[in-house]
């Protein structure tokens, strides 16, 4: 069941015209900073992890209005509930599909962003590993925010306000991944978000 739902979500995301938006946003944000901060390579390399993480966080929020709201509007959620399919499963599949749709292209674009910011290879490798560990949490938070704001007009802006404070641990451990133990804390933050996310999102979707 989970597999069927996940496969369907992946097909829908991969056919969506907005598929490339998060990764393009990510690269553009990384490209803007050298223009804004100036061509000081040492400064850029020092703030690069912060830039990359903020860009990744914002990129994960770009499709938040299309994560669950259309399903609520077009009756898909009704059909799933009528079939006795747990909304927790639906949300878990959606988190996995959202991660695949935004984090994997983003990891693929990381070398480009790294070159634009003058990051050396070892740092880029560490950032890739940190992103791999931390992006599941971002996907989970985005789906929860999408569920909470589904059915609201202009829910996207509100979703940002919901996610940004909750994403702070991921941001802190992700940026500080050169400190001992940061990877473990990052993985822990991801696991907590992944464990709570499907239940929180499903609770938000349950009809009153």
């Amino acid at each position: 069941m989970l597999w069927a739902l996940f496969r369907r979500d992946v097909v829908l995301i991969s056919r969506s015209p907005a598929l490339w938006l998060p990764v393009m946003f990510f690269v553009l944000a990384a490209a803007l900073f050298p223009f804004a901060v100036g061509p000081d390579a040492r400064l850029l390399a020092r703030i690069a992890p912060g830039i990359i993480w903020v860009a990744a966080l914002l990129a994960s929020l770009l499709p938040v209005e299309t994560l669950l709201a259309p399903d609520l509007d077009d009756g898909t959620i009704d059909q799933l509930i009528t079939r006795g399919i747990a909304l927790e499963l639906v949300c878990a599949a959606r988190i996995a599909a959202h991660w695949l749709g935004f984090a994997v292209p983003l990891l693929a674009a990381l070398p480009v962003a790294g070159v634009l910011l003058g990051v050396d290879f070892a740092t880029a490798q560490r950032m890739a590993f940190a992103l791999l560990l931390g992006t599941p949490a971002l996907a989970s938070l985005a789906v929860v925010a999408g569920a909470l704001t589904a059915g609201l007009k202009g829910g996207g802006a509100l979703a940002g306000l919901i996610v940004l404070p909750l994403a702070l641990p991921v941001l802190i451990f992700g940026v500080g991944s050169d400190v001992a133990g940061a990877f473990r804390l990052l993985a822990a933050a991801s696991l907590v978000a992944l464990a709570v996310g499907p239940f929180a999102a499903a609770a938000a979707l349950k009809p009153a």
Partner: protein
Amino acid sequence: MSEALEIIDLACQRGGRLLFEGVSAQVVPGGALQLVGPNGTGKSTLLRLLAGLLQPAAGAIRYSGRRAFAGHEVALKPRQPLGVELAHWARLDGGLTRLPAAMTAMNITALAEVPCRLLSSGQRRRAAIARVIAAGAPLWLLDEPTAGLDSASAALLAAAMAAHRAAGGLIVAAVHGDIGLDGAAQLRLG
């Protein structure tokens, strides 16, 4: 094939307003119940209660079998071909083998390759009914199933409903006017 549906002294509140109370009815296998009444008296809400999409304020619904629901929203993704959409739901229902017959029954086989956004509202409605047929659930919950259907499609729907009841299925439908449910009980709301 199936068990009876019992609605016992059901009450429903929406937005702090009591929509209806004391609603009781029974549908036996092969039977049908038509919900009639003016707009806004709770026909669709009663169907959503039966589908498990809402919780009643009081009373109980006795039925433990599978249900298939066709509401106002058709749950078809605009960019996907109709056949792919229906196959997805049929797969969730374990009814892929029933799908071709269901699509034939509602005369939408020729539309299988058409993206859903290009379908007319009547064609979407036929697709939603085909999904109900393919679900293989004993209890059908239909919200104004003939809305937007031409007379030929309405006849197809009547035939599908008759076949379902002949096989021991149950139907509850919110209706305005006759939709071809012979010998159906009526429940008047409002």
